[in-house]
């Protein structure tokens, strides 16, 4: 039986008490009310334990026990920041927007710091991510200090924007909870390449929450590369609302961190909207990664596609939970979900829980899951053609992962993901 985790919650609540007056928006009544409400929710719920069905396979005790007791957020200088891929980039250090490292000039849309924009965000902040539903959203709402706010006006093609987050080297564990708000107005488009990283030896918690609103016909590609440091925790939650004819294309690569949760809640709210959620989890010894998706088909004639792949090395544990909920109005839904895991070590563990909940009759929904080792016959085929075993294995693993990446239509995003996967695998082979 699991014990209820309270210690961690208390630590964060204590931190909130200490920081309260210095958090952004404290002079805004609505922000204050939002934070206090979230604190109440978090106090009542605490960190979810494994007795909570949605957390059956992921134990947050390491996070709760870490005691992030900093009174102030560390403001590092961005040491170890990866080089930019393109022209436009927003940089966050320890969850705070850093203008000196960012390059946002010439963007065809509004983009800026949440802390700065806060007075104008009453209708947006918390519209999708409600503290009462998820303890981690409550935690984020209680303590957020900054984030990125993007508004792409109707009909504008926003191009590619990088969102880089880095944690600073530190002796004491730090925690940061950025809140990112993204809105694409009718017919707008944007590609976001998000990359999160951190130093190897530092224990920290990165707890981002995204609220994404896509109006009629908008198209957002959201490629996420998670390369947190080996002692880092990332507990990320994405909320997306997709209106008629809009498309949300999410790909999440989980390659770093000690304990990682990638949770996505997407609502297909308007007819003929589309959601792609793909991802890969590449795990080494000692890592735990959890991808949890909840996809609501709340309008007719929508389509959704999900492909998630997990590769496990050493004593690692991978989790996939994916739920497709088809509401009664969502006739002619076309939903597909596949999750596959490749176990490369006798000590690895994979837990998978695909789930369909269907209340409409004219639907086509399917899911599939496979779990296993590398196919001995495929290996033999390659070996018989003179390919050394190591090379043959990496070819098969790459092919396995490629299937998920192929689904990403935006070329820049796809190239970034392919590079990240290749980088992980080359380090693995070495």
């Amino acid at each position, binding site marked *: 039986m699991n014990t209820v985790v309270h210690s961690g919650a208390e630590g964060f609540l204590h931190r909130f008490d200490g920081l309260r007056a210095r958090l952004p928006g404290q002079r805004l009544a609505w922000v204050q009310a939002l934070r206090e409400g979230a604190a109440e929710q978090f106090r009542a719920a605490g960190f979810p334990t494994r007795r909570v069905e949605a957390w059956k396979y992921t134990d947050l005790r390491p996070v709760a026990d870490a005691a992030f007791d900093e009174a102030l957020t560390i403001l590092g200088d961005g040491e170890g920041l990866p080089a930019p891929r393109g022209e436009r980039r927003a940089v966050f250090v320890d969850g705070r927007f850093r203008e000196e490292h960012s390059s946002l000039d010439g963007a065809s849309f509004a983009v800026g710091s949440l802390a700065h924009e806060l007075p104008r965000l009453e209708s947006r902040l918390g519209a999708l991510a409600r503290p009462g539903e998820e303890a981690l959203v409550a935690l984020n709402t209680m303590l957020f200090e900054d984030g990125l706010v993007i508004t792409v006006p109707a009909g504008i093609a926003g191009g590619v924007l990088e969102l880089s987050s880095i944690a600073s080297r530190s002796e004491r564990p730090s925690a940061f909870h950025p809140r990112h708000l993204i809105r694409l107005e009718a017919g707008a488009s944007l590609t976001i390449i998000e990359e999160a990283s951190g130093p190897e030896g530092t224990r920290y918690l990165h707890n981002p929450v995204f609220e994404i609103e896509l109006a009629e016909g908008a198209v957002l590609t959201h490629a996420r590369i998670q390369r947190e440091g080996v002692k880092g925790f990332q507990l990320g939650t994405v909320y997306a609302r997709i209106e008629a004819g809009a498309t949300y294309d999410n790909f999440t690569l989980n390659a770093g961190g000690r304990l990682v949760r990638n949770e996505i809640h997407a609502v297909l709210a308007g007819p003929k909207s589309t959601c792609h959620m793909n991802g890969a989890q590449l795990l080494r010894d000692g890592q735990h990664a959890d991808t949890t998706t909840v996809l609501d088909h709340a309008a007719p004639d929508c389509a959704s596609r999900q492909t998630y792949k997990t590769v496990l090395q050493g004593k690692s544990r991978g989790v996939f939970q994916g739920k497709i909920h088809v509401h009664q109005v969502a006739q002619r839904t076309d939903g597909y979900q596949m999750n596959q895991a490749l176990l490369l070590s006798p000590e690895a563990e*994979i837990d*998978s829980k695909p789930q369909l909940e269907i209340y409409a009759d004219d639907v086509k929904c399917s899911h*599939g899951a496979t779990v296993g080792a590398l196919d001995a016959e495929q290996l033999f085929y390659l070996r018989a053609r003179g390919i050394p075993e190591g090379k043959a294995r990496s070819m098969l693993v790459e092919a396995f992962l490629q299937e998920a990446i192929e689904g990403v239509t935006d070329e820049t995003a796809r190239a970034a993901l392919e590079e990240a996967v290749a980088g992980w695998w080359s380090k693995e082979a070495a």
Partner: protein
Amino acid sequence: MPAVAETLDTVQSVTEGTYKWGFETEIEMDFAPKGLNEDTVRFISAQKKEPEWLLEWRLKAFATWQRMQEPRWPAVKYPPIDYQDAYYYAAPKKKDGPKSLDEVDPELLKTYAKLGIPLKEQAILAGVEGAGDSPSEGGRMPIAVDAVFDSVSVATSYKERLAKDGIIFCAISEAVQEHPELVRQYLGTVVPPGDNFYAALNSAVFTDGSFVYIPKGVRCPMELSTYFRINAKSTGQFERTLIIADEGAIVSYLEGCTAPMRDENQLHAAVVELVALDDASIKYSTVQNWYPGDAEGRGGIYNFVTKRAQCRGKRSKVSWTQVETGSAITWKYPSCVLLGDDSVGEFYSVAITNNYQQADTGTKMIHVGKRTTSTIVSKGISAGKGQNTYRGLVRIAPTASAARNFTQCDSLLIGDQCGAHTVPYIENRNMSAKVEHEATTSRIAEDQLFYCRQRGLSEEDAVGLIVNGFCREVLKELPMEFAVEAQKLLQISLEGSVG
């Protein structure tokens, strides 16, 4: 009878507005006082003249049950059950054996007639002296029936024929008296008394059920069968079935149920335990057709059952096949714990929910032994306002090298007021194991319906035909006797769901 005529016949019997098997037989009963406490448990144990160890076992289970909470995780909704407002023991009054069918309580015979039990078997069931000693007519392999009329086995047939092979097939209360060492050795070893809320309740108050022991190397010469009936008003039924297949033994067991129409909801919490030793094979088939409640969702049986098998021996095999068409609420997960190397578990299921029926059913396959394999085929059909959930677990332990599982869950939706849900859990801790899961949800295709209608089938018949096709993979696993009944049941259960 040709299939079409038969179908029309059964459909007609339902369109007349009542549940075909919704009758109630009035027979004198012995009741335990209403309510549940330690005294109820002692009363039941005393009625059964049970040994001290079993009473202790029951009391311990009762104490455990009192500390447990009713599970809330199944995707089913029902008003709270008042466990004090039910009778926990009801037995038909025992008379001396009648000399012929003429002496048998005519009410009992009427029940059998409505169930369609042949006269010959009726005599045996009613305990007519001398019946069942002569070989069966027509050269047809007989089915041994252990009829559970409410809680007590009224009669056990073909006992002597089975005894020749050393097979024990009797009521569990009889087994407690006659074979206490076997019962004590196996009872509660597959489903421990504290396993879950309903299993604990059952362990405390179980009144009857079947006991089967197949000795080493024996292939049971006939299908063993139990007809369950829930009869007396407001009695919960708590059967306990225990089947042991010793090394190399083979047995096929049939469980079939119908229940009279009721307004009050009735609780049924059975426990079934199967044990298969080296090279043994058990096939357990169920057709469940308890009263599902009326079209408005009133009444119906609550079917909260724990069924589990342990494949303890090497190369042992357990196969569960179920056709679930009845009950207001079904909560049932026939499972296999695959301990022996190379052991095999199978689960084939058809579950239908119509009107306001709710079903949360599936299986657990726990792979422990090396090279263990399991197959899961689940077909869920939702119509009316029915809610149908497949919930299953495949767990591969680190020891289960080269284990293999294949799971297929298909759901069919008829009408836009119903729901179909799939909740599989896959847990793999062995890299050499291979697990595959597939699930689909769809409705009856327009073109299939059109094709059938164009050839002169009524819409109802067309749906019946398509549904039977959808379930074929499961139905073909049923023994012959059940397959026919099951097909009929599918059609009846979907009555009124189209058009």
